[in-house]
């Protein structure tokens, strides 16, 4: 795939109170940013299950953004710290699976930080563009060798049957 035309598909999990509102504010203030991040609203960054991130990547997303309130400013007191811990453990595992660390990012944005969120989105998109497609779902598929091999077995067995029958 040509890297210059590569438009990454990124899923963004934004918390209802700070980061989703930061994205709203970016809109109200017309702060243009890259259209590649598709937003899924959750009540809190603490709701983001690593499963969601892996699901998005395995389905074909090239990157994931998790955004929450700043540490100490969580709408739910301190749940974003749980998001932080999960994020670091998930990154540790993804690293071991050869997924580049720049593809998954945790971002803090208060409801007043439309500009910062827009910059974070642009930053992530630029970084993922540099990395190119993740191609995790294609990587799961086998090439034509597999189908060919299966056919071979069937043919071989059929021939063997003829001889012995």
């Amino acid at each position: 795939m040509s890297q210059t035309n590569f438009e990454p598909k990124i899923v963004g999990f934004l918390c209802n109170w700070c980061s989703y509102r930061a994205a709203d504010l970016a809109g109200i203030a017309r702060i243009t940013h890259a259209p590649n991040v598709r937003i899924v609203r959750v009540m809190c960054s603490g709701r983001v299950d690593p499963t969601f991130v892996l699901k998005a990547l395995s389905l074909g997303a090239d990157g994931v953004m998790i955004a929450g309130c700043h540490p100490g400013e969580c709408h739910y007191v301190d749940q974003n710290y749980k998001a932080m811990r999960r994020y670091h453990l998930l990154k540790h595992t993804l690293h071991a699976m050869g997924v580049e660390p720049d593809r998954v990012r945790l971002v803090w944005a208060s409801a007043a930080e439309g500009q910062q969120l827009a910059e974070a989105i642009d930053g992530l998109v630029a970084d993922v563009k540099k990395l190119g497609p993740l191609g995790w779902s294609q990587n799961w598929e086998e090439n034509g060798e597999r189908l060919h091999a299966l056919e071979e077995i069937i043919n071989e067995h059929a021939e063997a049957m003829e001889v012995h029958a």
Partner: protein
Amino acid sequence: MSSASGAATAAGTKPKLAIYWAASCGGCEISILGIDTKILDVAAAFELVMCPCIMDGKVRDIEQLEDGAIAVCLFNGSIRNSEQEYMAQLLRRKSKVLVAFGSCAHEGCIPGLANLHDKQAIFENSYQETESTENPQRVRPQTATTVPEGTLHLPVFYDTVRTLDQTVDVDYYLPGCPPESPKIWEAIQAIVAGNLPPKGTVIGSDTTVCDDCKRIRNVKKVKQFKRTWEIIPDPEICLLEQGLLCCGIATRAGCGALCPQVNSPCIGCYGPNNDVHDFGARLMSAVASVIDADNPKDINAIISQGIPDPVGTFYRFGLAGSLLRRSKRPAGSDGGH
């Protein structure tokens, strides 16, 4: 699927049973034999048409059966080459009920960890890099070899290890590495009695190992993860609270908490509970939630010191069946960091 329709057992003959192994270790068969004298009941109830581990049998004979002629196939092992895939498809076609038997067929198990690499890297390691290997000609297995009598074929080795249900349609799952003998007996009884749950069911309980574990559990906060050789755990208290990464919290009950009983943390061989999409992700989420640190530096220190092999910890049994696809690591890198 074409299998179910062709089901026909002639009156008076015993229903046919097949037990097959693909990429597996043979432990599942041992566990079947572990039902002890009840194996005689199995022999009385079924005609065993195939079980390469304990008796001779020809693929040809299976091929000649009518579709759906086998009442039950217990299929263990994951799928990593063309022969295994062929056998999975064949047995699927010939069997009324196909059971993914044991962790390998269910979620990939240890063979599934090969997805940390690709074929090239595995061959390079196995046929070149190991200390005991002497292979200056860089010989590699070939799928076709011509000899005077004709061409001999070896199965094609895949890049990716798959579970049984990623290969063919599966009716039931019997988890465990291996499934515990009493659970096997329960399942066989259910099959004999025709008392089967809805298709797709994982036959087992819907609680986790904690339910069977007798240890005292408190509110959890983990400051440091410890490896098993680092401490002698208190036999009364939850192992996770002592810093041992016990997978029991996320692992389906069924074994009777065998490992925690002997002061060893659960490693998760029974796989995830109902409704869990990805065992490793769940376990990571739970474990990370109780890490007792609030800044990235401390969190990362706790993680990297205590969990040096995250895939082997969280996905030891479930990598192939998980949402993680095959590793993107370039060939030759060892993934250490």
